[in-house]
């Protein structure tokens, strides 16, 4: 909804530039990570995932990088478009856990 993420970190990029959104996680035993996109008034939408046995995974215009040494996850969006404006958040799953733990997210705004 429109009130979600009222005080979220914000990243502003020019249309056509690449965007990099970061996520730090705390559980060194996490073995599965997901990036979601949430547009205003909509439910979170799955973008891409990565397992801990990988460092990088590519999708269509998106790349996820995982650095287990520093417990850092990033989402790279190539050639950012107006439709990419949204809140992006990561989720992690601890090894053997049943549930995902969600971050609060970053708001991406696109400047024309």
């Amino acid at each position, binding site marked *: *909804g429109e*009130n*979600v*993420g*009222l*005080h979220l970190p914000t990243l502003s990029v020019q249309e056509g530039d690449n965007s990099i959104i970061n996520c730090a996680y705390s559980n060194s035993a996490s073995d*599965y990570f*997901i990036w*979601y996109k949430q547009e205003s*008034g*909509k*439910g*979170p*939408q*799955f973008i891409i*995932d990565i397992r801990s046995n990988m460092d990088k995974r590519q999708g269509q215009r998106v790349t996820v990088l995982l650095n287990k040494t520093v417990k850092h996850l990033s989402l790279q969006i190539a050639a950012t478009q107006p439709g990419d404006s949204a809140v992006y*958040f990561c*989720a992690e*799953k601890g090894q053997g*856990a*049943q*549930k*995902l733990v*969600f*971050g*609060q*997210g970053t708001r991406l705004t696109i400047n024309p």
Partner: protein
Amino acid sequence: DAGITQSPRHKVTETGTPVTLRCHQTENHRYMYWYRQDPGHGLRLIHYSYGVKDTDKGEVSDGYSVSRSKTEDFLLTLESATSSQTSVYFCAIGLARGDTQYFGPGTRLTVL
């Protein structure tokens, strides 16, 4: 929204009244989840189900109950709504424990 519908999409109710939210899926996924999303808190798990009649509590289950009598339907009930339960509620589905979750469009609930 991956074959997930939520009803109602919007509801305004008064303190002390019972409220039931419905999640319906057409994907035949085993796992179903109810989350609430509030500014400053991100997505928080209320309850989840790992099969028909099999449910368990999440991190914010007080004041909520759930039922799953069919694979495709997962109901969330607020027995006596309070203003602190004003939120946006999302249902999610998943194939396996802790695996990728796909979200519905959400229900905005306002308790006056």
